[in-house]
């Protein structure tokens, strides 16, 4: 973990992504610094998930360059991709746990694929990961269909963290959780980020988590990043969508003091 390395964790330049004649991302540029938690916001259908899926290589891009952890993804061959995929973890919105494997086996999948480990060590580390995300050893033997929504997200997070990645992508990690569980989850991400030295790229709608865990926030509208900065900078943005988002009823409710001070 070379956190001192100055190359940004993610560097996106001039990215264009579209489907048919609809352009979703229009010459988008974005930098994610190492070791930060970047919250990514945007209206429904604005292309947040498209950006995430393009960065991790699930969608093709039309134009532009993407560099992740100092590796340019354009010319990268299969081997470079495999090496890179070891260094990041992805938490999908609905968990995407393999339904025929137990929680513990789900966490072990990337270990089996990428590392050569003894069964004992694999079991112990996988259990350790499950405990680190707040589950206990008994939950490890459950199948995904027997897990609650919050537990599914935790197992998915443990799986994303299985290889001790440098970078994790979280797609709406707190959606579908109750406020207490969402708060716990935020705290968990914060703790893990600090202990493991992670860079976190988090797509979210949760104003609370933007407020509490994110170092910086980026906002996506009209296919571009319209603003990036801390939450107070976001609140000052003149863009109408940003105003509606951060100074709307729910946005104001979170930190009335701050809003009152600014207005």
């Amino acid at each position, binding site marked *: *973990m070379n956190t001192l390395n100055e190359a940004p964790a993610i560097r996106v330049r001039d990215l264009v992504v579209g489907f048919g004649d609809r352009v979703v991302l229009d010459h988008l540029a974005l930098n994610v610094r190492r070791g930060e938690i970047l919250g990514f916001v945007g209206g429904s259908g604005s292309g947040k998930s498209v950006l995430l899926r393009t960065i991790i290589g699930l969608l093709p891009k039309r134009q532009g360059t993407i560099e992740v952890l100092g590796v340019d993804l354009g010319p990268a061959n299969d081997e470079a991709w495999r090496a890179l995929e070891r260094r990041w973890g992805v938490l999908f919105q609905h968990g995407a746990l393999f339904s*025929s494997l137990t929680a513990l086996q789900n966490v072990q999948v990337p270990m089996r694929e990428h590392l050569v480990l003894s069964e004992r*060590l694999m079991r*112990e580390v996988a*259990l350790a990961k499950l*405990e680190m995300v707040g589950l206990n*050893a008994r939950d*490890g033997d459950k199948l*995904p269909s027997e897990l609650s929504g919050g537990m599914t997200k935790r197992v998915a997070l443990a799986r994303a963290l299985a290889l*001790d990645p440098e970078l994790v992508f979280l797609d709406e990690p707190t959606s579908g959780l109750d406020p207490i569980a969402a708060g716990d989850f935020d705290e968990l991400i914060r703790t893990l980020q600090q202990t493991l030295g992670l860079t976190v790229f988090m797509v979210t709608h949760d104003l609370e988590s933007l407020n509490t865990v994110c170092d910086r926030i980026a906002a996506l509208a009209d296919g571009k990043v319209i603003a990036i900065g801390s939450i107070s900078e976001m609140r000052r943005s003149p863009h109408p969508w940003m105003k509606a988002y951060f100074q709307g009823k729910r946005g104001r409710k979170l930190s009335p003091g701050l809003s009152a001070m600014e207005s």
Partner: protein
Amino acid sequence: MSPSPYLRAVDRDGKTELAAAGSWTASHATELERVIDAVDGDAAVAKAAAINMRGIEAFDTYGAWLLERLIRSHEARGQILPIVGLAERYQGLLEEVRHVNREATDAKADANFVVLTLETVGRGVENLGRDLVMFVNMLGSLCFAAMAMVLKPRSFRLMSAVHHLDRVAWQAVPIILLITFLIGGIIAQQGFFHFRKFGADDYVVDMVGILILRELGVLIVAIMVAGRSGSSYTAEIGSMKMREEIDALRTMGLDPVSILLLPRVVALVIALPLLTFLGSMAALYGGGLVAWLYGGMNPEIFIARLKEAISLTHFKVGLIKAPFMALAIGVVACSEGLKVRGSSESLGLQTTASVVKSIFLVIVLDGLFAIFFASIGM
């Protein structure tokens, strides 16, 4: 490439100390585990006063856990192994690992072979009983829904039934015609080949006619339908079950049996006799064609022989069986579909079970009908 992990006992101010170096990370975990196990078993090292982590270059959960494991194994022997010189930024990680794996979670103990076999057999019998109950249960609820339909015909989902009829009957026609045509031809060819040896060519027509109309036509079509439509019913209902669509229907006060299952089963019960008729005709056609081209029997003679050999009874025997077989296929497909649990694996499992069980039931039914028709002289 980062340097290999390293752990060695060194002398320091007259005391033994473990000196660690290299990268203690996931990619070196196997090596590291070996190094640590070697050190752990060493009697000379057991007296070590501390473990010095100053030389560590990289450290992650894997390294932290293996370090913790070494310390715990010392603790189990009543020794304390303090850690010195671990960089500040790794302290939090180690602290995190300190709390994990405290509960004993041994992998499941292997049971006795005899016990295991007995358990498997017992569970098998239990499942068989449960299947039987479920079959009867499903048959009952379908009958109930059908009664309700008769009393209130407007409640029947006609559109849905027509849609399924299109899928299981109309769209199945080409493949059914092809297969039965080929089977009819093959039976005739085999008949000519073997019957010719004792000059019984003429009886090939009897064999083809009776075999196809009484048994093979309906049996082949039923097996095809079980594989083609029964499996798709199970998969559809199963995936609806997985996505809680069936629960959603229930909560809206709608009965899944009359909305989802009854139209499907009704479509199947209508489709199978129709397909059996078409299939039998195609098989006879195939038989006639082979008789003409391979056996040298004129089509007029074939038809004349056929008229003598078969009666309406044979045709009826085949057709009467069809709706019952369709019902068996439909009931099995629906009850297997409802048995699907959350995982994609169980969907595959139940779809397979549906096809296997319905084919088995079709053949058993055919046997029962054979006894029945023999005893009433049909």
